[in-house]
């Protein structure tokens, strides 16, 4: 009967396919999984530095771009070997809880406030982030917050706290989105928002948005790297992961980071030597 032939054929195809599908998990060149942030991924930094590392070591780096909060959770569950994120306090807590081996500073960039060119809160050209937030709240000018527990979101909340304001109201929009989608949304509203400079520089759909406030020390954005603790998760590729971390903070890795530019602008500033960072 024709139908039986189909069933048998399908069964054979299934076993072949299952075998083919499972194969990459067991037989492939060495790779590590790095949970990182949307800002590093979307800025294109990894496309620039990873090929250099992969060529040198033969280790493939698979990057999953998540918000910092989600990336830390991925590490906690043991689903990544290395974390490359930017929320120092949360990172140190992660290590203190025994989820990570050690946190090392890698690089920094800074946050900027972007907003519509017509500047309803009148903050353009300023360099005081806290004063700018106070002016935005005063004017009740639309402000788009990431609202996703990311490093950028945490930095923004710290600034609100410094300004003595608990932002709420119709003008304060919590999006629960990554940096790029937040910029897309802010461009449409239009609204003020806080972005890391790297994502902003590489972002192409700016609409009426431009930089309104920059240069405040409190807008400093430090990135750190952590090896997930192999004592917690024995499958963690500690050796290859450590090799990646060592390379990032080495002279070669630092130089690779510093040489990444978009339109002649450097996006990230290596500072692995700065032990307090």
């Amino acid at each position, binding site marked *: *009967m*024709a*139908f*039986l032939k189909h*069933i048998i054929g*399908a069964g054979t*195809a*299934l076993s072949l*396919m299952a075998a083919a*599908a*499972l194969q*990459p*998990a067991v037989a492939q060149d060495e790779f590590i*999984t790095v949970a990182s942030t*949307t800002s590093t*991924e*979307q800025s294109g930094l*990894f*496309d620039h530095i990873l090929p250099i590392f992969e060529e040198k070591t033969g280790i493939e780096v*698979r*990057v*999953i*771009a998540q918000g910092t909060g989600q990336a830390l959770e991925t590490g906690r*569950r*043991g*689903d990544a070997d290395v974390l490359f994120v930017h929320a120092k306090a949360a990172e140190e807590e992660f290590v203190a809880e025994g989820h990570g081996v050690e946190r090392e500073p890698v690089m920094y960039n800074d946050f900027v406030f972007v907003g519509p060119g017509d500047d309803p809160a009148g903050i353009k050209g300023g360099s005081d982030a806290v004063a700018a937030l106070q002016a935005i709240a005063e004017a009740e000018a639309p402000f788009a917050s990431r609202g996703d527990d990311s490093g950028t979101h945490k930095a923004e909340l710290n600034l609100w706290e410094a300004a003595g304001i608990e932002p709420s109201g119709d003008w304060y929009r919590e999006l629960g989105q*990554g*940096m*790029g*989608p937040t*910029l*897309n949304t802010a461009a449409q509203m239009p609204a003020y928002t806080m972005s890391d400079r790297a994502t902003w520089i*590489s*972002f*192409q*759909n*700016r609409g009426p948005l431009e930089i309104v406030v920059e240069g405040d020390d409190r807008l400093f954005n430090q990135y750190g790297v952590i090896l997930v603790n192999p004592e917690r*998760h024995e*499958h963690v590729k500690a050796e290859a992961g450590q090799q990646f971390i060592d390379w990032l903070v080495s002279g070669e890795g630092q130089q690779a980071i510093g040489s990444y530019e978009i339109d002649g602008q450097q996006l990230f500033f290596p500072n692995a030597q700065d032990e307090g960072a």
Partner: protein
Amino acid sequence: MDGQGAFVTAINLIVSGDAALAEIVGLSLRVTLSAVFLSCLVGLPAGAALALARFPGRGGVIVVFNSLMGLPPVVAGLVVYLTLSRSGPLGPLALLFTPTAMIIAQTVLITPIIVSLTRSVIEDLWREYEDQLRSLGSSALRAVPTLLWDGRFSLVTVVLAGLGRAMAEVGAVLIVGGNIAGHTRTMTTAIALETARGDLALALGLGIILLSLTLLLNAGAFVSGRVAQRTAG
């Protein structure tokens, strides 16, 4: 950014034979078609069996499957994520953030669609065939392959519904695949990434390519279905 720009981008991508694009398209097709295949393998017989079987609680099972057709992809993705995570029950298989994980998530997502729609098609067919098949001595179980084969033209539409859902889906594959460049990046996750980067022309260009692919698959199914139907009645 405008529609024309996106169209030009799409054409350029296709004409230039962009290797990364080819890889992304290849992975999308591999993941989606594998998931559809697995879903059909399970869902067609299960849907037909559900159409014919009479047991207490059958109505409840039908309602559950109908509801699961609306399962939000992120929920399916999250469930598969938690299952495949190193801290989850299937962690030792090391499947998270692999194409296999994406196939599993999409299979979970579209199997209820295949089951529910198959049940509906086969139930109608069974109403027409039941007396005749029973008269010939067929049990309900024995009728399953007969009905699936006789309903094949309607079932193609069922399969296409599953395919469409899988092709268009981004939430589940993003969570369990991780959108890793060159490894688990598919058409839809690439579109999501380019949108996040603000490169809307590229995102829309990829969208046009995805839609064209879906169109091509559907057209192929439609034409071959028509030809087969003309010869098989």
